[in-house]
């Protein structure tokens, strides 16, 4: 019996979520989380629950939600299989620094460790892939644990946090009071760089003749978009983005030179190995960014700014390592550095840019007939949406081509992808989450036929919620990226990459989702325009693209970042 001011732990959990400002939960009920779902029955006015079709959908949707609006995503699932089904997404959130709080039900305290029905050692399983996890055994720990969970997930370098809530904790009665967490003695999320560090960075930047900036998602996370632009402008420094840094600068920003990395633009990759000072901000020198590490920017003095101390010196040993928040560090450096001009250096990017335009971009976007190419589809979406869509991708060629040809008008958080872990199946649920977070913005998913079928069950969620996601399948009947590697590096032996597809329009009809198939170039523009006509309606476009299309340019695995293939046979050479 609930009496006086005592409530169950289950209700305390929901109250705590409300007190944290949570408005949306992505979840799936089951036996050991039922007391919470029972109380949720009365909280529908304060907490919107989106019922997914598989727990993996819940975690990716929460990631999409968090990445699109910067708030911590919330997942609620049951014990055992419910919890293990979110493991991939937790690892993904860890790799991409995404703030997510995962609430898992757990068997009663007495049954812990007895191999009880639907018991799994979720704390053990997730300890290496969460920023923090904690098992709640009693109701009086709930409020404090939730507060701590949101503090840890959202501050410093964000990441996933898991709370494993035993049945006892859900059912016990407790007097509820909530206090936001404002600090933990063992954790300093915002280390303060010293003046000396800033000074050393400023000296290097001021002395540079050929400075170059590479930036990553740290810019987005620390809300440093304006500060980055101001820093680049004052120093007259060209910049390239990592895949997760995309959209932090508008595509037409004068000093923006495009994406770095394996399938990045030629100019920023080549210039990485020609600059004299490389300033890396909010990025972690992923191997897809560096190529062969021993040949990465050897000529340059490197300044590495990151909020995570572990990242500094992990891959690349910098001359100056600054552990701190990107916005704060950039603000301090910009204030102290000299206004500079590097016109000649910046002019030297033109040659690479023109070569890429001529050798790679034109053939991809304006081919002489033949099948539709993937790049044309991405380009058309950018054109029709006026570069204003939030672009979501799955993983593979669809992701790389979307990263290469999407454009952004200055609103950050507009490119959402599974970068670090590379999780196929991320796309559809992440798009649902992003659209839920930003219902007014067009949200466009690019997904391959492989990834579509990994989480296609979430069409059910789209149907039930009416989520107005626009889903574009770049359909080539292959597991395209693996096929591309097989073509280039495995002698064309297409081992298990040929994939037959269902009739996606038929599937969409079954789910009540509007859809169309595009097979001809002349139909593409109208089809894309039709798709975006009503922002609130879900829509799927099944575009049959060139089957053996490759994503180029490409730095092959194991090569230095300036060794770039421009097509299947040719390498990029300077001066023609």
């Amino acid at each position, binding site marked *: 019996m609930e009496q006086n001011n005592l409530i169950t732990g289950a209700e305390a959990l929901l109250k705590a979520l409300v007190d944290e400002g949570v408005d949306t939960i992505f979840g799936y009920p089951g036996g050991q989380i039922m007391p919470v779902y029972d109380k949720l029955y009365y909280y529908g006015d304060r907490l919107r629950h989106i019922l997914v079709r598989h727990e993996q959908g819940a975690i990716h949707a929460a990631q999409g939600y968090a990445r699109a609006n910067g708030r911590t995503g919330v997942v609620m699932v049951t014990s055992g299989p419910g919890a293990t089904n979110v493991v991939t997404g937790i690892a993904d959130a860890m790799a991409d620094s995404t703030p997510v709080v995962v609430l898992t039900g757990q068997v009663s305290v007495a049954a812990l460790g007895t191999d009880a029905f639907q018991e799994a050692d979720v704390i053990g399983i997730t300890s290496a892939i969460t*920023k*923090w996890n904690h098992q709640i055994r009693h109701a009086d720990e709930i409020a404090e644990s939730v507060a701590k969970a949101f503090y840890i997930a959202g501050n410093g370098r964000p990441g996933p946090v898991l709370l494993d809530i035993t049945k006892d904790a859900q059912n016990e009665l407790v007097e509820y009071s909530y206090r936001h967490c404002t600090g933990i003695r*063992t954790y300093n999320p915002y280390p303060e760089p010293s003046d000396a560090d800033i000074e050393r960075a400023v000296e290097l930047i001021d002395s540079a003749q050929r400075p170059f900036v590479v930036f990553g998602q740290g810019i987005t996370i620390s809300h440093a978009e304006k500060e980055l632009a101001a820093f680049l402008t004052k120093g007259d420094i060209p910049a390239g983005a990592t895949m997760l840094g995309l959209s932090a600068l508008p595509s037409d920003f004068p000093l923006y030179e495009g994406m770095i990395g394996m399938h990045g633009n030629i100019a920023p990759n080549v210039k990485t190995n020609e600059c004299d000072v490389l300033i890396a901000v909010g990025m972690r020198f992923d191997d897809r960014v560096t190529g062969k590490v021993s040949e990465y920017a050897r000529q340059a003095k490197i300044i590495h700014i990151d909020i*995570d101390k*572990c990242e500094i010196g992990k891959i690349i040993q910098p001359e100056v390592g600054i552990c701190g928040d990107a916005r704060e560090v950039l603000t301090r450096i910009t204030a102290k550095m000299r206004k500079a001009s590097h016109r000649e250096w910046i002019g030297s990017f033109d040659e690479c840019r023109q070569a890429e335009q001529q050798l790679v971009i034109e053939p991809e976007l304006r081919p002489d007939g033949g099948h539709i190419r993937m790049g044309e589809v991405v380009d058309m979406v950018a054109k029709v949406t006026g570069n204003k869509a939030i672009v979501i991708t799955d993983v593979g060629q669809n992701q790389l081509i979307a990263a290469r040809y999407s454009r952004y008008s200055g609103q950050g958080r507009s490119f959402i992808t599974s970068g670090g872990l590379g999780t196929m199946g991320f796309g559809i649920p992440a798009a649902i989450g992003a659209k839920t977070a930003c219902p007014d913005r067009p949200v466009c998913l690019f997904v391959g036929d492989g990834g579509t079928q990994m989480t296609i069950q979430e069409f059910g969620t789209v149907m039930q919620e009416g989520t107005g996601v626009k889903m574009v399948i770049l359909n080539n009947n292959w597991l395209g990226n693996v096929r591309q590697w097989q073509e280039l590096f495995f002698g064309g032996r297409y081992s298990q990459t040929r994939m037959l597809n269902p009739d996606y329009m038929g599937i969409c009809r079954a789910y009540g989702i509007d859809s169309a198939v595009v097979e001809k170039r002349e139909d593409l523009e109208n089809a894309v325009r039709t798709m975006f006509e009503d922002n609130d309606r879900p829509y799927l476009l099944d575009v049959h693209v060139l089957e053996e299309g490759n994503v180029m340019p490409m730095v092959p695995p194991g090569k230095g970042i300036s060794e770039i293939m421009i097509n299947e046979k040719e390498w990029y050479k300077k001066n023609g």
Partner: protein
Amino acid sequence: MADSIKTYTVVIYTENSIGLLSQIANVFTRRNLNILSLSAGESAEEGSYHITVVTDGTERNVRGAALLVEKRVDVIRVDYYTDSEIVYKELAMYKVPTKSLLESGSMEKLLSGHQAKIVDINKKFTVIQKTGTAEDTSALLEDLKDYGICEFIRSGRIAVSKQWNAEEAE
């Protein structure tokens, strides 16, 4: 040489959280660092614990592991040292038949030579205790083999840094 393999002592200060030790062990596993010795206990500061891990590895790898451990929210601080930077000891206990010790007549000389002492004795067996480095405790083990060793056990290493930090002393 930054890349040469040395013995490192990693000293970890933590909250007393359930499961933290397994998280720490996971970090060492992930970096392919074998835990040669491990000890854990309450530290001088109430509620905080220290864990001492001895491992062989390159400085780069051990540093990376130390940073990853320090990154755990419940970890306060991690330091790592080479042997020359610390005073370190371990505790060893040797269970030896009393009869053979007494018959030898050289027990006292042996124990004083090794700075070991008897902590328990009865008709059947004697328990000898020694603190020292792994080399010290192994040396005594070697000498005691002649008497017949029934049981030998050694603790993990504990260590104190040779650095002097005036602030810490206050």
